[in-house]
């Protein structure tokens, strides 16, 4: 039974885990890079230790340093969060060797699901359908891949063997463009994961990305907590998730849930995990992969089921039984999560960096914000652009959408550009409202210029606002230049003027 948990992560997920520890009365240890000295997770933890310079490889990926800090601080458990070391079996094994509880699955399960071939073969044996491809056939050379590609058929996807999150992923329309795309996929995979190996996979058209959350304890109980709809993606990065999926009925949910449980049992899975499926328009589902960790989008499941997944993770890691049986799990209402990224939707979604000067969080009924930033915090180019997750719950999906619209309007972040306008446009899209979308929707049929849902457009108000701001600036600079007209110093005058105009 552990007493002190080291959180080997940063940002909103470190804060999320810290909160669960605090609620459970467990002591917490934060680790941080030089760029994160002022981060929220450092401030909220009972103890905090510096890992090293800002780049991940010198800080959050330094397994050796993290274990050393665990020893030094007396932490007897480590929660890896997501990303970084979360799916590294060698790290889980190193924890076990040190007698530290790794809050996650056994190293053997991480290895089995992390290795594509084993994962595929294991789930096929358990009776789970998979997408055709070369996944699991080892590291093939470019010429081998080019030879196999026509057998799989186009369009197909190049994916990084060590991958995730769309890095090192390319879509190939025909054989001709494939060599160049292989090259750039390998380059990106090499830089993101230190492993340039790739594999091919058939592209399922009109596909939805739907995943099942499972929880498994050490007593052999495995349950599923329903599905999450994650089809709204851009460059294979999820942008918005919801639970339940508007596409899944009770029957499909039960079938996919039971298959997910089988897949988890096939690798002796313990703790929280997620089985990702591609679902085609005829409701055929194919196993994609298992994420052997907590997911970014876990809050939508928490909101829709009322189950605190991180709390259950701690409970499972302490060797106790799950608090729920399958019959206890009921979906109530609908939850939506918008990932708030420091990206400018009006400028090709380019990352935006800078200091957060001002931030006003949405509050009120049914709203949850998971974030690791606050005014004064610097958004650096070193980590993920995700700065917050805005989650809402409503009695119905329609109410959740109305609530999300309201919350997005309330949410003000100044200092960096964010993708909030993207989400606002999405909430107004008829196809989104009707639940009619697949994984290609954002890239192929969605435009920031669409304003379908009779959104109030007021160019006159925009004109007045811009003119008044321009006028104010002209006046201000004119008055600063005109010397000697006032008896006080110009600087003092500007200070007063600014205070007056707050």
């Amino acid at each position, binding site marked *: 039974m552990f007493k002190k948990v080291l959180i080997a992560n940063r940002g909103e997920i470190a804060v999320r885990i810290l909160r669960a520890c605090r609620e459970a009365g467990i002591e917490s240890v934060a680790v941080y890079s030089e760029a994160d000295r002022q981060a929220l997770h450092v401030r909220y933890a009972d103890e905090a230790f510096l890992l090293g310079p800002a780049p991940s490889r010198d800080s959050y990926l330094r397994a050796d340093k993290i274990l050393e800090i665990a020893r030094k601080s007396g932490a007897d458990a480590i929660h890896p969060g997501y990303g970084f070391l979360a799916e590294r079996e060698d790290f889980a094994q190193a924890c076990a060797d040190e007698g530290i509880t790794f809050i996650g699955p056994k190293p053997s399960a991480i290895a089995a699901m992390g290795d594509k071939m084993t994962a595929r073969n294991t789930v096929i044996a358990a009776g789970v359908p998979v997408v055709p491809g070369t996944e699991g056939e080892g590291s093939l050379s470019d010429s081998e891949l080019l030879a196999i590609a026509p057998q799989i058929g186009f369009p197909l996807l190049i994916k990084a063997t060590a991958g995730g999150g769309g890095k090192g992923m390319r879509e190939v329309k025909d054989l001709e463009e494939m060599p160049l795309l292989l090259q750039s996929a390998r380059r990106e995979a090499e830089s993101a994961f230190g492993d340039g190996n790739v594999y091919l996979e058939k592209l399922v058209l009109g596909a939805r990305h739907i995943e099942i959350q499972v929880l498994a304890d050490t007593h052999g109980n495995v349950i599923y907590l329903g599905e999450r709809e994650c089809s709204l993606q851009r460059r294979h990065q999820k942008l918005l998730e919801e639970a339940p999926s508007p596409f899944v009925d009770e029957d499909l949910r039960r079938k996919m849930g039971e298959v997910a449980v089988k897949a988890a049992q096939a690798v002796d899975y313990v703790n929280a995990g997620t089985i990702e499926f591609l679902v085609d328009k005829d409701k055929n589902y194919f196993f994609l992969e298992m994420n052997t960790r907590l997911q970014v989008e876990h809050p939508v499941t928490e909101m829709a089921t009322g189950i605190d997944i991180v709390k259950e993770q701690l409970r499972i890691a302490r060797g106790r039984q799950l608090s729920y049986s399958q019959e206890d799990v009921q979906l109530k209402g609908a939850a939506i999560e918008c990932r708030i990224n420091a990206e400018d939707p009006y400028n090709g979604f380019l990352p935006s960096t800078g200091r957060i000067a001002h931030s006003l969080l949405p509050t009120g009924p049914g709203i949850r914000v998971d974030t690791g930033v606050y005014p004064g915090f610097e958004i650096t*180019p070193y980590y993920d652009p995700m700065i917050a997750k805005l989650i809402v719950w409503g009695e119905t999906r329609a109410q959740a959408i109305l609530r999300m619209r309201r919350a997005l309007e309330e949410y003000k972040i100044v200092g960096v550009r964010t993708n909030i306008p993207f989400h606002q446009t999405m909430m107004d899209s008829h196809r989104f409202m009707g639940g009619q979308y697949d994984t290609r929707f954002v890239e192929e049929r969605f435009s920031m210029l669409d304003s379908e849902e009779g959104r*109030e457009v007021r*160019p006159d*108000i*925009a*004109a*007045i606002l811009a003119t008044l701001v*321009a006028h104010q600036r*002209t006046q201000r600079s004119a008055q600063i230049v005109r010397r000697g007209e006032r008896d006080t110093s110009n600087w003092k005058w500007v200070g007063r003027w600014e205070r007056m105009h707050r």
Partner: protein
Amino acid sequence: MKYIATIEGKEFTIEVLDENHIIVDGQALEVDFVSVSGQPVYSLIVDGKSYEAYVYPAEDEWEVLRRGHMYPVKVEDEREKRLRAAAGGGVAETGEYHLKAPMPGLVVAIPVEEGQAIAKGEVLLILESMKMQNELKSPRDGTVSRIRVKPGDSVEQRATLLSVL
């Protein structure tokens, strides 16, 4: 002071009389206009109706973001507008284009060479930031000149990376 605000071709003539009074296209309005805690978030009350928006300065115009809608607004006083009319307007497709880093990052690759002819939309440079590789493309046809960075370089925002003649 009289201004002309242009949004996507539509012009508004706005005269600012004093802090609380303006005339928009001949109609007098009473306004109450404040910046929210000194930030580019502005609150405007016009005849009892309350509006809130971000107003960002852009290159030579303003960007007003309200309720998920972006309005690009060009604001000129009458003198500026006359000057522009006299100059003829329109940005020429000639002259030097300087590719600047849209954000700080790491130069991953430069798939072009100095002196190479390139077409509009061709990738000039790959810049990695926030773990994503961003392809920076040429806005027009031309010839690559003066590459100022090399793969592996860290660059600041707005740093000039290379030029297109």
